[in-house]
């Protein structure tokens, strides 16, 4: 090889090397960019448990950082996917569903593989013309011509599908596919976490309707998951018992569903009063309410009187439906109680146990004989801090099962 040829060869070699170095640098810089993106995404953008915020964050990330203007997130539900969030679509399409295996999104969900598809319009036309079939209505960008859809998975579980569309025929390339592959795992994990949290909150809310939060607090627990059999607390508390008088003959005049509606209407009127006065409902027994006031007997008396007032309003309302007025009885007693968890491991219930419950129930029963609505025991009168706000009327002494001593009972009214 001549000297000239050699130097030419060296030059060529050098330029080739330089190209390789540039290529490597390029790859390295892209790797660094990828890592940066991943860090920002997980630490800032996806760091929320609120689903709506999370969707918004994902959508703006995709738009602002990656330039994906028209995006949708669909969440998986057994045999279909439902649009949970959309960005850059004229018609939001929230709530629309896609059956598994249908269209780009459904196929991606079914096969659990990313798909990048160009020339959607041409392809659709080809199938429609050949088959003479119209396409089903699926949530999509009007005039979409390119689309990428990627399954959002956490391990083997399909959380949903993320899709980005464009009216342009050739909008996405292999790099877009790569970016989505990188971020999709994190997006999936974030959505899964937020959904689980959301579900948990709903569950806790539903639970609190069955076991009141106040009851748990009484036991020193924050959540129902902390409770166990034998959890208990003792103390002096007030029990309020109330019942619709002669409810059985009344309910015989109604169909079962009418009875249900009637009882729920009645309880819906009375139950909030308990809560407003610092009490909670331990249980409903048909139309009867058993409520606990852990703080003071005054709360229970105030609640009882309020229930009496609201009964008049309730009666006025049912009179409009052509029903006769109802009467109720309320008995209140204060005494030592044990609140705790009873039952056996698989079926537990929070409840209160004590003589005090029987006495309150007995008092409620006696209201009928004495033709009054509200009766309280002498203990209540004695322990009432606000005694001077009321007028008490000693009505009778009643015996309670299992108790030697009779209990003196009083009618109560507000001091005028």
């Amino acid at each position, binding site marked *: 090889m001549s000297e000239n040829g050699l130097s030419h060869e060296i030059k060529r070699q050098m330029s080739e090397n330089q190209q390789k170095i540039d290529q490597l640098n390029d790859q390295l810089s892209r790797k660094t960019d990828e890592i940066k993106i991943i860090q920002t995404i997980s630490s800032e953008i996806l760091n929320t448990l609120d689903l709506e915020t999370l969707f918004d964050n994902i959508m703006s990330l995709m738009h602002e950082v990656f330039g994906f203007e028209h995006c949708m997130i669909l969440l998986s539900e057994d045999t279909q996917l439902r649009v949970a969030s959309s960005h850059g679509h004229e018609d939001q399409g929230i709530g629309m569903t896609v059956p598994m*295996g*249908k*269209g*780009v999104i*459904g*196929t*991606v969900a079914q*096969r659990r*593989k990313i*798909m990048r*598809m*160009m*020339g*959607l319009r*041409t*392809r*659709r036309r*080809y*199938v*429609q013309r*050949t*088959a003479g*079939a*119209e*396409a*089903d209505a*699926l949530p999509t960008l009007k005039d979409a*011509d390119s689309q990428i859809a990627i399954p959002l998975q956490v391990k083997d579980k399909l959380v949903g599908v993320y899709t980005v569309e464009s009216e342009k*025929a*050739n909008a996405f*390339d292999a790099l877009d596919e790569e970016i989505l592959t990188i971020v999709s795992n994190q997006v999936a994990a974030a959505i899964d976490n937020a959904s689980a949290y959301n579900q948990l909150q709903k569950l806790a809310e539903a639970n609190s309707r069955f076991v009141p939060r106040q009851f748990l607090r009484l036991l020193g627990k924050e959540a129902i998951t902390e409770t166990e059999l034998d959890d208990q607390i003792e103390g002096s508390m007030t029990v309020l018992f109330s019942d619709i008088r002669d409810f059985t003959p009344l309910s015989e005049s109604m169909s079962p569903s009418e009875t249900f509606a009637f009882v729920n209407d009645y309880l819906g009127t009375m139950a909030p009063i308990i809560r407003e006065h610092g009490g909670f409902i331990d249980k409903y027994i048909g139309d009867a309410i058993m409520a606990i006031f852990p703080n003071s007997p005054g709360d229970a008396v105030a609640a009882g009187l309020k229930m009496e007032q609201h009964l008049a309003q309730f009666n006025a309302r049912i009179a409009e439906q052509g029903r006769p007025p109802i009467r109720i009885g309320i008995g209140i007693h204060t005494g030592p109680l044990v609140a705790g968890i009873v039952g056996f491991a698989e079926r537990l219930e929070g409840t209160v146990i004590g003589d005090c419950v029987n006495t309150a129930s007995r008092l409620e029963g006696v209201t009928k004989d004495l033709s009054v609505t509200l009766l309280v025991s002498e203990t209540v009168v004695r322990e009432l801090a606000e005694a001077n706000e009321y007028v008490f009327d000693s009505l009778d002494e009643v015996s309670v099962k299992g108790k030697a001593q009779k209990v003196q009972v009083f009618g109560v009214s507000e001091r005028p």
Partner: protein
Amino acid sequence: MITEDLIPALQGIVPAWIVTTSDENIPNCTCVSQVYPVDETHVAISNQFFSKTFRNLQNNKHAVVQVIHPADNRMWVLEIEHVRTETEGALFDEMDMQLAAIASMSNMEDVFKLQSAYVFKVHSVSHLTEAQRPAQSL
């Protein structure tokens, strides 16, 4: 051989035309929805209906395909040779998935089924305007 500039022409945006010949050397020209890029020297087309094209390829493995670049509508001509037929694997799955996605939109997923992926070696790539000389190996 298949360069970055050619890739957009292999995305199925504009349908392609493929020419094959029968055992009596009668040419057949037909439209295919997509010529898939496989790697730098291979492309693939989908076989859905066992049409004349695929019958012809049993006889003569050489074919010419014309693809159109969607950005400038320039036509490219590829001289290709059928080298293998795939009925499974990553390429088959990808092509099958795309077909299923489109077909299912019109409830035609049972009709439009990918039978196989025909893989071709690319012998030459040229612009149509450059393809003046007669195809050599046809």
